[in-house]
């Protein structure tokens, strides 16, 4: 084995996680989709990295970056977990600019030695190298929403453009977003109840935007609009979105995001319902 490779091999052995990317934006774009809180928890296994952000014990966002996205990906232990300041991580990942000149790529090498060690980032663009040492924090227990596909009552897959405008123009004076899913009319309805009045947006089930429609039972659930609004970040990047609710009224939004190299990544939001809808209103 040539001396240089030998050296890199030895170096890799001391790290519990090593990941390299030719285009750092394939990672930073996905992380921006869940950046609505300062801190995130990262879990790495041989399958890839899952980054989780939570708010108010009611909403959770997960970004999955599978091992195949990386040019090099090794995890020494069964799983590696740490908590990190996501704002700082994103600033570091985009140190050479958020909108690079076309044709220039920033390469990334990311190493983590284990519990108590900082996350090391080596970024390179056009011969300029940036080294970042981000301190990691004690991982926190993340919420388990116990969202199980066997309990899913209603499921709709939409082309994201169908939801993009609706979400960007949500009436933020309304405290809640009410989602109605039903095998009968109105099939799929988004409602807000704001200062200027109520608004309802209906999607017919035979719309071109509707890729799949599997609704078994009428469900009307309300979700805090302030908790759902951040998912717009993922929505604008995605091409398709799957909207599911389970028997408890929990909501799952899965966004399919295609990166610059045409690979598919997923970002998932879970949100618990706001309250029981009073009988008289439904």
């Amino acid at each position: 084995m040539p001396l240089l490779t030998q050296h890199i091999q030895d170096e890799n052995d001391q790290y519990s996680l090593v990941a390299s990317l030719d285009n750092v934006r394939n990672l930073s774009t996905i992380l921006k989709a869940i950046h609505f809180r300062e801190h995130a928890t990262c879990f790495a296994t041989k399958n890839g990295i899952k980054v989780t952000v939570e708010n108010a014990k009611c909403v959770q966002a997960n970004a999955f970056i599978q091992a195949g996205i990386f040019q090099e990906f090794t995890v020494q232990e069964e799983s590696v977990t740490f908590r990190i300041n996501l704002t700082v991580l994103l600033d570091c990942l985009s140190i050479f600019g958020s909108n690079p000149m076309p044709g220039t790529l920033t390469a990334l090498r990311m190493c983590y030695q284990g519990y108590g060690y900082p996350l090391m980032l080596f970024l390179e663009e056009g011969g300029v190298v940036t080294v970042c040492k981000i301190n990691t924090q004690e991982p926190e227990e993340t919420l388990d929403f116990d969202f199980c596909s066997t309990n899913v009552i209603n499921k709709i897959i939409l082309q994201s453009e169908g939801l993009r405008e609706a979400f960007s123009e949500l009436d933020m004076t309304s405290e809640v977003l009410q989602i109605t899913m039903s095998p009968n009319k109105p099939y799929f309805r988004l409602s807000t109840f704001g200062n200027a009045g109520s608004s309802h947006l209906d999607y017919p089930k035979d719309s071109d935007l509707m890729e799949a429609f599997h609704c078994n039972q009428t469900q009307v659930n309300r979700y805090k609009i302030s908790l759902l609004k951040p998912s717009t970040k993922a929505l604008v990047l995605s091409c398709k979105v799957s909207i599911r609710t389970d028997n408890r009224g929990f909501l799952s939004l899965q966004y399919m995001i295609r990166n610059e190299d045409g690979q598919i990544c997923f970002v998932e939001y879970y949100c618990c319902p706001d309250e029981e809808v009073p009988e008289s209103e439904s």
Partner: protein
Amino acid sequence: MKFRAKIVDAACLNHFTRVSNMIAKLAKTCTLRISPDKLNFILSDKLANGGVSMWCELEQENFFSEFQMEGVSAENNEIYLELTSENLSRALKTAQNARALKIKLTNKHFPCLTVSVELLSVSSSSRIVTHDIPIKVIPRKLWKDLQEPVVPHPDVSIYLPVLKTMKSVVEKMRNISNHLVIEANLNGDLNLKIETELVCVTTHFKDLGNPPLASENASQDRNPEQMAEVHLDIRKLLQFLVGQQVNPTKALCNIVSNKMVHFDLLHEDVSLQYFIPALS
């Protein structure tokens, strides 16, 4: 005291607009010094305001087709004016595609720098847009504070990397920290570093090259690997970088260890000196 000047050449007008835009980004108010063959834009901040100073110089004959001035007296044939730099750059914004531009010192109830722009129109008649920029004439006794700064002898002198890259790096670092360390050696290496409780970030620029040393220079004995460093207010550095819209023909960074950093830039025939003092 008299001053009137005229630009007719489109390239000169563009260049002058670029210079004034740069000045507007670098200094809120500045002093304009008019002498028979030169114009200077000067900033000399009080130490309490951060102590940044700037000295921008251009040869009048490279810009103006007509240039007449009469200073305060025969032996002091100069004029010093204070103006809000954005007013000048805003006035020049209307001068794009203009046929001619005239700048004149006037007194319309109060002293003004009057900028008149002769615009082309579809019909043969021409239109003239006039801007009166209020100014303050700086009295003779205050001139001594506005003289060309003495360039201190640097420990390390190094060519700057592509300013756009440097700017995006410093912009991101600004999000994380208020202070920055700039360090360089005589081996062509320049590093930008920030350090907080949360994160350390260092950007390494290599092979930038060092200008040939002046003879009888003390730093000749310096170990080429040894770094000279300065702690700066990151906002001051960012302001300088944001002001650089066009890549200069020559860009030099001079570091006086723990005292100051001096940027020496040449844009075609306009020279810009910018001094940022070290944080104590």
